[in-house]
């Protein structure tokens, strides 16, 4: 039998080999801010667990390297990821001297790269399996439940990032909900304003270029600069408009962060609404009028449903973008996961940075998968005629 290589598998195997043999698996530090010492897989894990993980990684990488059945690749990626997730916790316990509360163990580059390599393998398998939207959401839920169980079980409690969490459990959830509120709230506001604006731009051609240009320009303003630009007007409103301050409107804090995210969100929503409505087949519009629909019936009965998948694509862009951008809000006292990121940067405490960054990335990832599934579900049924 001729042995054949898998193209992506070669890359995955190379990355995995580098990470397993050359990169550190975990970092040990005497306390949270001193420089760490690297530990390889064999050094970071107990006598049996180390070689076991090495064996799993090598076998899984070989599965990836050669052309193997999809189910085998799926099993390889899932087993490798599960082993990595479980054993990184074991490494935390193993490396921390008993009774020492100052020492910190955190996953090092090798761990992250291995996670990346096998996630790539998993993603590739899932893509090739051509899963239905529901199945993809189910996979996401399964992964979330698995991670949740690991967190609750305490398997990771000796890792530095969870020690950072333990010290800030209350503020973690408070900032987390602020982050989500900021991202979703500004999205909601952008949809409420952007949809009608998009419809207006579609109907009134003269408005279109102007509105889209202005929104485009806003999009190019760096976020810090936009915050700066907002401080003066919002501060003015706070002092001059009665009741505004009571609503939380101030030159710094949540208000400018919200407004900035809202402004960034407008372009994708408006532009996709315009593109979606423009893409409605002429014949469908013509038929709608010819059948005796009023303008409003045509908008809600024909144009809107047909443009919906494209508009949803805009909303997906905004949601993922907002979840990421909301991190910046912390810079001007707007709260969110960014608080931990910037504190961590200030204290050169990498694990604190991760405490802010990891949930942000996870949220964005989950939002993308869910909205992609929704888009696909709405689009397949309504496939637009190509004739």
């Amino acid at each position, binding site marked *: 039998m001729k042995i054949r290589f898998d193209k992506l598998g070669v890359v995955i195997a190379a990355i995995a080999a580098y990470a397993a043999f050359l990169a550190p698996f975990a970092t040990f530090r005497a306390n949270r801010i001193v420089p760490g010492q690297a530990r390889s897989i064999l050094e970071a894990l107990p006598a049996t667990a180390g070689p076991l993980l090495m064996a799993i990684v090598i076998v899984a990488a070989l599965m990836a390297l050669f052309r193997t059945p999809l189910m085998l690749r799926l099993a390889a990626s899932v087993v490798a990821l599960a082993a990595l997730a479980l054993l990184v916790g074991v490494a935390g316990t193993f490396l921390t001297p008993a009774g020492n509360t100052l020492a910190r163990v955190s996953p090092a580059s090798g761990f992250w790269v291995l996670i990346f390599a096998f996630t790539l393998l998993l993603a590739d398998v899932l893509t090739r399996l051509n899963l239905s939207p529901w199945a993809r959401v189910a996979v996401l839920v399964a992964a979330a439940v698995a991670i949740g169980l690991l967190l609750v079980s305490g398997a990771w409690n000796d890792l530095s990032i969870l020690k950072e969490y333990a010290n800030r459990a209350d503020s973690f959830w408070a900032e987390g909900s602020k982050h989500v509120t900021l991202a979703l709230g500004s999205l909601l506001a952008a949809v409420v304003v952007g949809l009608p604006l998009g419809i207006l731009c579609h109907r009134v051609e003269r408005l279109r270029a102007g509105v889209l240009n202005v929104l485009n320009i806003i999009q190019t303003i760096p976020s810090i600069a936009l915050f700066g630009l907002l401080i003066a007007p919002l501060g003015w409103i706070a002092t001059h408009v009665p009741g505004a301050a009571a609503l939380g409107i101030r030159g710094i804090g949540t208000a400018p962060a919200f407004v900035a995210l809202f402004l960034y969100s407008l372009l994708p929503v408006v532009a996709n609404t315009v593109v979606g409505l423009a893409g409605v*087949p002429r*014949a*469908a519009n*013509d*038929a*709608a*009028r*010819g*059948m*005796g*629909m*009023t303008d409003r*019936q045509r908008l809600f009965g*024909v144009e809107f*449903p*047909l443009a919906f998948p494209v508009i949803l694509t805009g909303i997906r862009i905004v949601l993922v973008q907002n979840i990421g951008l909301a991190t910046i809000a912390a810079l001007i006292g707007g709260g969110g996961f960014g608080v931990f990121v910037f504190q961590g940067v200030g204290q050169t405490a990498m694990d604190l940075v991760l405490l802010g960054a990891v949930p942000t990335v996870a949220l964005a990832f989950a939002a993308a998968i869910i909205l992609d599934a929704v888009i696909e579900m709405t689009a397949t*049924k*309504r*496939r*637009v*005629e190509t*004739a």
Partner: protein
Amino acid sequence: MIEIEGITKRYDTTTVVDDVSMVIEPRTIAVIVGTSGSGKTTLLRMINRLVEPTAGIIKLDGADNRSVPGYELRRSIGYAIQGHGLFPHRTVAQNIATVPVLLGWEKNRIRARVDELMTLYQLDPQEFGPRYPHELSGGQQQRVGVARALAAEPNVLLMDEPFGALDPIIRTKAQEDLLAIQKRFGTTIILVTHDMEEAVHMGDKIAVMDAGKLVQYAKPAEILANPASSFVETLVGASERPFRLLSLGRVRDAVENGAAEGEAIPGDASQRDALAELLWTGRPALPVKGADGKPLGRVTVDGLVKRAARPA
């Protein structure tokens, strides 16, 4: 009855429809024929006010079509647009139900009407009702488009090149279906086409348009026999004229006494088909049978050739 009186449509300085007047009798088919860009679609769309005329009036059964709001007018007039224009996000049943829903019909009545129309068009309601338009063949989509136009039992049906996208065999079938339905419901139909063959076959009267003007409006035989201008003559096609004339007549009207050898041709067949059969088989005469299978006589090459000559 549809009365079009001095209708003109101008866009800026170009006159697209130029002072057209014509009367369409109830329960007949009027076919508007002309080259592309001659204003056929615009004229049709002024009847249901998708386009508002620059001048002139259109009366439906005596009432000015501007006496009700446009959308209400359009709900009372069937409209089958060029290239079917089905709503891609709605099922076949929902598409057909469009106007009845707009009119606020009761659910059961709508379902019954949709089933009736689908059955009429040989689409099984169980199987095709829940499908989306992209899951149908071109011919099926076209039938659904016409069924949708007929859903609210309109007295008037406007059709813009409804068969243009169909292959010849399906097109012939669709034309026959439409003629049968028109007979059954007595619908007044205005049909736009650029195909003279179709016009002669379908029309009780044919309106020939050229550059926005109505150049001739008459019965098919009259158009063939006495084209009003060289344009109409070209459109009719000089070499096709005798055959088109024959296609208007039935075999039963050309029967002569006597007998002939071979397979009998039905009296309902067109004289053109009879002549084609005679020429192809190299025989001088064919026996003719009635609907009941009884012999009626025969048709001859000589007899048909005389009928193909320009009427005096």
